[in-house]
């Protein structure tokens, strides 16, 4: 097991002194090269969970280990992809991809070489010298993926990365992400509120309940890829997961 979450909980204290429990007792083991989605309604703390794993926040209780090693802050073995506003607008596409390598002190030539490799992977070679504001939303997220992959992390943490895109672009990027995943065999932890997206992408779906977020159910998706969104089996699983999410919403 690559990534192990053990009893993660998170409480926030508000200004008026009251305490809000965002997450409670999250235990989960993610295998190497596994694609796991965390699904839940807004306010279930799924983003908080991802931020805790990324080292941007610390859990109130619980531990995170990666290959047996305890993780307490940002780990060089993980890279996070945000929903939006994550590219540096003053840097060109290639300079954005080089950012993480620059931080690690890699030489200029080495960086350039590596960045071009990942530009190719996301199909944006011709856009190397463009600036983020010259790109469409889908292209910007491809750049963000390339930047995260460039540092060669073991785990990709993705926080609703396609949430701000239109449906068509979204579907396209989902297919591309699966291609990349199959090529690179990264472990992916993917936060989304879209049932369709989770069923299309994942090996397993972790369904969280609303506040405080607890693991309601873990749904393995056995369907072979590429998955047909209009297929009978796809619809059945989709229905099953949706029922869980809707039940929770109804019982609030």
């Amino acid at each position, binding site marked *: 097991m690559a990534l192990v979450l053990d009893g993660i909980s998170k409480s926030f204290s508000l200004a008026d002194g009251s305490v809000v429990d965002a997450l409670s007792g999250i235990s989960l083991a993610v295998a190497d090269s596994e694609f796991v989605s965390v699904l839940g309604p807004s306010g279930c703390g799924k983003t908080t969970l991802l931020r805790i794993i990324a*080292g*941007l926040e610390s859990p109130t209780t619980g531990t995170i280990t990666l290959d047996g090693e305890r993780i307490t802050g940002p780990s060089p073995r993980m890279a996070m992809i945000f929903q939006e506003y994550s590219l540096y607008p003053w840097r060109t596409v290639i300079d954005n991809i080089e950012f993480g390598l620059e931080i690690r002190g890699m030489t200029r030539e080495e960086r350039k070489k590596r960045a071009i490799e990942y530009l190719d992977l996301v199909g944006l070679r011709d856009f190397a010298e463009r600036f983020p*504001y010259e790109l469409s939303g889908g292209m*910007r997220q491809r750049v963000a993926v390339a930047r995260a992959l460039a540092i060669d992390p073991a785990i990709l943490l993705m926080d609703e990365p396609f949430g701000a895109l239109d449906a068509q672009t979204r579907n396209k990027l989902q297919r591309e992400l699966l291609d990349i995943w199959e090529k690179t065999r990264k472990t992916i932890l993917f936060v989304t509120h879209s049932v369709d997206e989770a069923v299309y992408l994942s090996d397993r779906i972790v369904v969280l309940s609303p506040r405080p977020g607890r693991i309601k159910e873990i749904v393995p998706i056995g369907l072979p890829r590429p998955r047909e969104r209009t297929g009978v089996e796809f619809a059945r699983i989709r229905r099953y997961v949706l029922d869980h999410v809707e039940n929770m919403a109804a019982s609030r």
Partner: protein
Amino acid sequence: MRYQRVLLPIILVVAWEIAALAINNPFILPSLETVVPILINPFSASFTLGTGSLAENAATSIERVGLGFLIATAIAIPLGVLMGRSRALNDFFDSLIEILRPIPPLAWVPLALAWFKIGLTSIVFIIFIGAFFPILLNTIDGVKGVKKTWVEVATTLGASERQILLKVILPGAAPTIWTGLRVGFGIAWMCVVAAEWLPGISRGLGYLILYAYNFGQTNLIIAGMVVIGLIGLAIDLVFKRVEKKWFSWRGLER
């Protein structure tokens, strides 16, 4: 350039000439032909009542502004970055700054004289005061405006505090800081003219136009004013040019 842009200045010059002829009093309004020779001979000392050429006076003023502006920049940017990054430091300095900021730079003149006596230090101090606050406030704004995600991306990629400052905060705040520098320089340039009216000063464009007044040389006053305006304009254009070249991404963050 569209002709509308030069229309009003041309009308003004023509109107000026007509009015000058009608008034026929060079002390109130000298005619164009007494002003132009001064402007087209900026290196000649023969028009300036023995105070050095127009260019020499301009150079003196630019030097003074440059010095005050550089000192203001050197203090305001680091302080602004600290205040923009740290809530505690912001609260610590903020009330003092809010009290000092509305005081016009020229209100500092008597105190400047008391502290630094007559001379370069007093002038530079006034300019410093003029340039300092716009640079500081814009730097704070710029640093606060740096998107949280930009910093978090760097954090997750393993950046140190120093790397975050140099590679995220400063470039992210740069367009707003640049605006502060531009506004600060504009105010500094206004301040130098007035600061050169301090007693004991014997060079500079501000000094020149006041000196010209004492001799009733209104044509020299106007020539001096034109030069003050043109230099201010030229420097502002340089600031704008750089802004367009380097900071065109501002407002297009996505």
